[in-house]
């Protein structure tokens, strides 16, 4: 609970921040909300030699609608997301992250760059097929889709010395949505989380569907078997229940104190059905 020694800078611009990270080398870490990094440091599971605090960076916070996308600044707090009901599933999910103190500090960019499969927003990015813009130390930018962002447990496409500068999430107007999060306590990480998005065709059938899981593998993953089972077919309780039975396909859930892998697979099926039912409005 006592972190090791580290240096600290709080640069005033993005360029300075990137430079500080570059100068600090591999053991320099950017600090956004700090609610993942600081606990790891206090337990000495992370021992950065330099913290580059991003709190003074202007222009990396805020929510704007641009064409079909939500453009979200990476330093936007979970609390800001949760207050914007028009963000749909993003707002609904943000409201379920940890507790209010964490939501007041934690940021969407931090959560996505950290890539904890038990965190909620990565699954939302995966389901919405959002993308992030990453700036590297040389000043270059690239856009990375959700499917390519999350590479392994706590490993993302955001490399050392790089920062997420923009998050884009398709607004998916007209889609039904739901995030089902299963926890022992409200403030806990998800034992399993399911993000479901459903688009009904005019005839009531399932025109399109996306399902993504929190904490069912080493990264957030899409439930492609569920999606395939439902897409193009009827969107009634029976069809949803049948599709949800495929929820555990392709998953590799990590077992922990509170949930065996088998139990998590079971939860994934139950929660997928519930999330789809809610998203389908049935």
């Amino acid at each position, binding site marked *: *609970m*006592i972190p090791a020694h580290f240096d600290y800078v709080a640069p005033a611009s993005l360029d300075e921040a990137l430079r500080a990270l570059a100068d600090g080398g591999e053991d320099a870490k950017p600090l956004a909300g700090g609610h993942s990094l600081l606990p790891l440091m206090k337990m000495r599971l992370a021992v950065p030699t330099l913290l580059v605090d991003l709190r003074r960076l202007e222009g990396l916070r805020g929510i704007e609608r641009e064409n079909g996308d939500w453009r979200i600044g990476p330093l936007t707090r979970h609390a800001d997301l949760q207050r914007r009901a028009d963000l749909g599933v993003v707002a609904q999910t943000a409201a379920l992250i940890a*507790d209010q103190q964490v939501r007041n500090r934690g940021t969407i960019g931090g959560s996505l760059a950290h890539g904890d499969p038990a965190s909620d927003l990565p699954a939302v990015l995966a389901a919405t097929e959002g993308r992030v813009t990453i700036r590297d130390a040389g000043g270059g930018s690239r856009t990375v889709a959700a499917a390519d962002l999350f590479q392994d447990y706590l490993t993302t496409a955001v490399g050392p010395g790089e920062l997420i500068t923009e998050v884009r999430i398709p607004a998916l107007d007209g889609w039904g949505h739901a995030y089902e999060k*299963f926890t*022992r306590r*409200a*403030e*806990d990480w998800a034992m399993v989380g399911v993000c479901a998005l459903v688009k009904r065709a005019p005839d009531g059938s399932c025109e399109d569907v996306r399902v993504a899981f929190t904490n069912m593998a080493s990264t957030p993953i899409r439930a492609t078997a569920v999606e395939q089972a439902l897409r193009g077919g009827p969107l009634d309780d029976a069809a949803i229940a049948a599709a949800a039975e495929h929820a555990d396909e392709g998953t590799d859930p990590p077992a922990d*104190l509170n*949930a065996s892998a088998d139990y998590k697979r079971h939860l994934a099926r139950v929660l997928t059905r519930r999330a789809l039912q809610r998203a389908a409005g049935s």
Partner: protein
Amino acid sequence: MTAIETPQADGRHVGRPLKRKEDPRLITGRATYVDDLNPVGTLWMAFVRSPEAHATITSIDASAALAREDVVAVYTAEDLDLAAPLPMAWAPPGIDLNVPEHWPLARGRVAHVGDPVAVVIGEDRYSVVDAAEDVIVEYEPLPVVTDPEEALRDEVLVHPDLPSNTVHEWSLGGGDLEAGFAEADVVIERRIVNHRTAGGAIEPRAVLAEERAGHLTVWSSTQIPHFLRLFLSIMLDLSEERVRVIAPEVGGGFGSKLQIYGEEILAAWAARKLGRPVKWCETRSEAMMVTHHGRDQIATVRVGAKRDGTVTAFHARILADLGAYMMLLTPMVPSLGAFVMSGCYRFPAVQTDIVGVMTHKFATDAIRGAGRPEATHMIEVALDQLAVELGLDPLEVRRRNFIPADAFPYETAIGITYDSGNYQGTLDKLLEHVDVEAFRAEQERLRAEGVHRGIGFCTYTEICGLAPSRAVGPSAFGLQGGGWESALVRVHLTGAVTVYTGTSPHGQGHETGFAQIVADRLGTDPQLVEVIHGDTSQGPNGLDTYGSRSLAVGGEAIARAADKVVARIRRFVAHKLEAAPEDIELRDGRWIVRGSPDKGFTLPEVAGLAYIPEDIPQDMEPGLEEVAFYDPGNFVFPFGAHAAIVDVDPETGKVTLVRYVAVDDCGPAINPLLIDGQVHGGIVHGVGQALYEQVVYDESGQLVTGTFVDYALPTAAELPSFETDRTETPSPVNSLGVKGVGEAGTIAASAAVANAVMDALRPLGVTYLDMPYTPMRVWNAIQEAAR
């Protein structure tokens, strides 16, 4: 921020829900905890702790740590010259115990994860932690045993220098058990596991020690400053008058700070050795690992009963996992349960057989309720199981066995005398709030919708007010000390009042409740009565706070000291008004001659007579201050009836507490708000154990639940708003008629929740399940039952 409220019609403060005098400073962050104290030159301690559950220490190399500029010293067991090991002060009487020596630093071998091997002392709290990582310790791992039933077989010894892992076997019984079972129409047996929990105080432990001119002062976040002074004196071989212990603001204890910890002793030892103040503040990780745990009992409960539910015999065999070392009262805790193994029932024959066994885990000791929650859980869960077996209403089984209200004082089969009670009364009051018939209809309806709702009850009594020296002392139940409490009541010249109590509150609200008691007696406002506690150099000797003793023993001592002051007031006023002292009375805040309200004296005016004694007889002492010591004639036995309603999601196994109703009887209320606070907190503690909290070690003795992420303390988000009510049955033991209430909620709640979960699960074929009712455990049980 004052909380002076409208007095009651009769002008009395006792009985009013006065807001806590303590709260403004606590809420606004102006309270002083140990960590707020930083004398000039303070050094910090950090510990090198064993990562192994059992190992020989083959070498310790502190050279790298010592080479650091900011490190002053590194000590290992070899450096310590203590006069005595850490104490086990209270053990079951009449038996020999097989007990390992326990020193503040491990001597050659570690016996649990976190066992301290070395202490690093340096200039600041951060660098000592870095330096502790630089101390290289080599361990030769030894075999580990963490399962208490396996430990009983002695195949792996927790301490290879001892003959066995079994610490003790101890029994307490009364009545003819054999005849009781022979007479029974039905006998049920259940194995009931009461798992290991942690205290989870919001302020971890902290200690600061300083020696000046041969006098040692120790500030510690402890429940027991007076005991700590005594043991510091013994272990450091210091004369007791040269040791002062101060417990400043203490952020919760729940029994976990009813302990003499090695870190406290080491801070004092090092402060003397180095001639500088030495400080240590426990981290949360350390608190989970090396602040004592509680519970951890496996009970086999056998109940014999007639067809109508009348219990004829009750037999509990308890295997208690005591951990690696015997701390202050480690082996005593299960015995405290044995004293109330009759519950609130007329069991003609009761027997408790206890086996204490060591494992390579940290010690268990007193955690809120200490033995009584475990006993109550056994009794109340077993009675529900019996009711199902007999096809009877569980409340009917309870009513059939209740000790009737007219039977008090009632001597139970084991010879303990319950002071007062009206168990039917609290249950009747509970049922005014809970319509069981309507609940059953609702339960049926919800089940059709896929929600499995259940209701569970617990009717309890407990033994508290730890006191009577003749009962708890060395020749009785084995406490190496007495059980009295003290108070000093001082009226100042201005009429302001200072009260010194020997109890040592850590969140309960003593400053408010005690002020109410004194204010009424002296004719002043509670806001003008300051209660001083937790400093061994102020006020008379005391015996601190644990076992719901502060009000029933310490409060009574205060009432008695105040009454002695009243006697003095009467004499001063009588002399002035030329009346007899017995004719002086307090009316509307003035001391008058009965029937003559025209002339009278307020408390400040009386203080003037006492402290400017120009006109008192030669044989009358000036001053307005008195001390009282009080040693009660018996314990007190609070009681109550609780109901829990839970929903179980059969698809996921998740249990949600939807309603909790508590009716408690702790005698006449001094302050109903304080009682509610204690009951609410107590319920959370019990619900926490039933649904959320568990200390888990893996087979190699590693602590799995090392943080609040894994040790799932419930928060407000998980809990409904509790409904509380009271009945008031005075205790004849003390003049206030009061009983303790700090542990009552915890004692009742786990069984109420357990019975509710079982009620919900029964239609799914689950007939019995142990706590904690985690989603996976409940879901697994449902799957098992469906097979």
